[in-house]
């Protein structure tokens, strides 16, 4: 029994291993995301940087790797590919390649374009007076494109898989890529949903309702796993935790005045949103309702997401602000070098000025339903993606 099962398992593993260009795109997407989180930590802990910080290199490695791998794939498929190679591709100005590869190439070019633009911007208007600037938006679009490209590549593999193939590696990788996109939501929304101190104000729930259901629901519809949204949520939380645990190990000294908080190591990102619970709710709802009633399903998904998310975050945030979370595991109570430390660290911000009222929750629920509906549309498209 054992002797016959082993070669079969090996064969399945071989078949499941993603092609080299998919692996490259996934490494690129990961590298860019690690770089972004590292860079934010760098700015919160050290303050000054050059182009050559490891965080920046990780970001640009993502661009270069995805661009070169997918560029080579396109050239090879166009000029040296056989009919089978070219079958699962889309045309682009006479060249052939998978849609995901084209999106990665576009992202790499956008990232490369942002570099001279950003350099000029610094020389003209000063060093990053604001994080959100036109060249940074071009860079962010490039990074997202690489991550989306990686997602499209694994989805097309998943969707071309024959029904009798048992390996689910490509689907798990798709869930992982959705987790990277969830990380993007955390990064962009760091001022609204990043810190546990924000979890008792209305904007927190409205922003989360806008960004999160779209991705979890799209995963639920487009990824062929029994628990796709939950898998994506687990990957999202694991990604955050690894970053929290690793970054804290790196020594760092603030190098920009004024230094109000003399930190000694890199400040980790905030503890992730506990998305496992709302993701479970989404998976359960999608398993029960099926594919026939998407409008009704979005209503259910939006309400299920918001209800479970709000209950979990409301109380878990109280734990995170308490003394038991101020340790290496949770990484809480670690603040920027430029912060003047005070009792605000342990209080809920804007809880009075922007309270969580029934009407605020109703708005959040509407946003969540809309987000879920878009997620279903996108998920349906993802489920059809073959090339």
């Amino acid at each position, binding site marked *: 029994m054992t002797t016959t099962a082993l070669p079969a398992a090996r064969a399945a593993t071989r078949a499941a291993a993603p092609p080299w260009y998919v692996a490259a795109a996934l490494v690129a997407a990961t590298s860019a995301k690690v770089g972004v989180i590292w860079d934010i930590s760098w700015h919160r802990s050290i303050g000054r940087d050059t182009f050559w910080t490891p965080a920046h290199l990780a970001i640009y490695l993502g661009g270069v790797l995805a661009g070169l791998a997918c560029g080579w794939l396109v050239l090879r498929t166009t000029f040296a590919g056989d009919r089978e190679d070219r079958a699962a591709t*889309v045309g682009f100005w006479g060249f052939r390649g998978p849609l995901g590869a084209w999106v990665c190439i*576009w992202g790499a070019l956008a990232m490369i374009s942002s570099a001279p*633009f950003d350099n000029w911007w610094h020389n003209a208007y000063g060093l990053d*007076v604001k994080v959100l600037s036109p060249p940074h938006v071009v860079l962010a679009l490039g990074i997202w494109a690489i991550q989306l490209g990686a997602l499209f590549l694994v989805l097309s593999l998943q969707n071309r898989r024959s029904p009798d193939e048992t390996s689910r590696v490509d689907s798990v990788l798709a869930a992982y890529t959705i987790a990277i996109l969830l990380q993007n939501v955390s990064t962009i929304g760091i001022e609204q949903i990043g810190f546990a101190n924000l979890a008792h104000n209305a904007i927190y729930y409205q922003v989360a309702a806008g960004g999160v259901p779209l991705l979890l629901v799209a995963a639920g519809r487009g990824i062929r796993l029994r628990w796709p949204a939950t898998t994506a949520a687990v990957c999202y939380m694991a990604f955050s935790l690894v970053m929290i645990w690793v970054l804290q190990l790196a020594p760092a000294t603030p190098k920009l*005045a*004024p230094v109000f908080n003399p930190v000694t190591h890199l400040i980790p990102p905030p503890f992730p949103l506990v998305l496992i619970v709302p993701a479970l709710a989404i998976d359960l709802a999608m398993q029960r309702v099926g594919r026939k009633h998407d409008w009704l399903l979005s209503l259910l998904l939006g309400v299920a997401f918001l209800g479970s998310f709000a209950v979990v975050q409301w109380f878990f945030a109280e734990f995170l602000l308490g003394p038991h979370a101020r340790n290496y595991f949770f990484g809480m109570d670690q603040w920027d070098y430029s912060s003047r430390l005070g009792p605000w660290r342990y209080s809920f911000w804007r809880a009075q000025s922007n309270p969580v009222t029934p009407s605020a929750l109703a708005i959040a629920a509407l946003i969540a339903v809309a987000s879920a509906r878009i997620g279903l549309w996108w998920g349906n498209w993802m489920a*059809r993606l073959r*090339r």
Partner: protein
Amino acid sequence: MKVLGALIALVAFAHVGSPDTYFEGAAGPYPVRVIVRSPGVVPGLAQITVRLLSPQGARRVLVLPVYSDPRTAAPPPPDVAQRVPGDSTLYSAALWLMTRGSYGVQVTVEGAAGSGTALVPVMAVATSRLALDKPLGAVLLALGVFLFAGAVTLIGAAVRESGLEPGAAPDPRRTLRARVAMGVAAVVLALALLGGRAWWNRVDAAYRTGLYQPLHATTTVRTAGGARVLRLAIDDTSWADPKRQSTPLVPDHGHLMHLFLVGDSTLDPFAHLHPLPLDSITFETDLPPLRPGRYRVYADIVHENGFAQTLVSSVDVPSAGGAWRPSDPDDAWSEGFEGSGDVRRLADGSTMTWDRGHTPIVVDQEAPLRFTVTDPAGRPAALEPFMGMAGHLMLTRDDGAVFVHLHPAGTVSLAAAETFALRELGDTVRGRLSARMTAIEKGSGERGAVPAGAILMPASRSLSFPYAFPKPGHYRLWVQVKRAGRILTGTFDAQVREPTTGR
């Protein structure tokens, strides 16, 4: 565009049209010359170079910019300046100037003779807006067009082919849908680009309104009792309104204001005056017997936070009336010059010589501003401190785009350096430091006294000013010294060249 060019030319701080800082002084036992090249933007990276002027070897050179706000907590550790390859006495580093205002840059030299620190005041202001040059603009435009067309093509490909089974060809319906999607995508992306452009324009407009401009001043001359009285009013809304007034003024070499008049057409008539304050806005002084005409007015002031600036104005001076009674014993004026070449005959019969050598003066390269004064008998003249300094040098380009007031210590204001040296944690209250500085000056018994060790009578009889001209063109220089109680002015002309390209 022309208007903008003029705006940029006019902006100035602590001098006009000369944004870099030059300093020569002592870091403990080590004489140093420090140059800080302004980045022109804030936040920005200023380049600092430190030249050791003595043969004593240094182990290392540290630089640390400290912001003027005393509430600022502990500064970050200083940066180690790197030795410039091929030059054993030159060190260089980048200064991170993150906030607009004044910084005291601590330059510390460590070596065999111990450790010493010099304090160099540096103003961080946005003075220029970099234009997008054509090659870079063309590259960015090309990349932008490529990304735009690429994104529209991608959307078309996604709709047309990405959902098809491998090998299948798109039917006409899919192709049509792809075309519609591309059209919609093009419109949406174009709108996004327009939004981006509006955003960029907003950032640009906000940046331009934040460009530094000196406080606005208006100068008038009236005749009173036969004398001509010049009045300068700092009538800027940010100064005249006491609630918005940033920080009070502090005396520099014993005077709250150093005012310079330069004849607008010939540059010949020149005066260095010290108007007295009637209140915090209005300053007055009696005019020396300058010929009537239009004059450029430059007024140097230093704020309590160490921010030094030059106010720029102009005034029509009517014809002379009665005799001149100087409002201040340090007031001086001159008209034209006697002498030829690099030698000038001064008012008391002594001679001032500019030891400029034969090398041309080039933009951004250290200028040979060395002068010697000899008495009528041809011996080196004994000079006295003039407002705490061995000498003062004023220079201007003929069109007024540059005006600088220099000392042997460089372009820095000593009062600004004092504000950093004397600052205490309790000086968050406005006016406290300025009151203490004024008391110290009064207590010292001598007007224009500066802290011990800060001056600057040269060991040799020659005067030297560290400086590099910022722009090419024709310049007029006035060198002022004091001998036997008399203020003497030597006037010179200089032609400054563009650097030749390439090495």
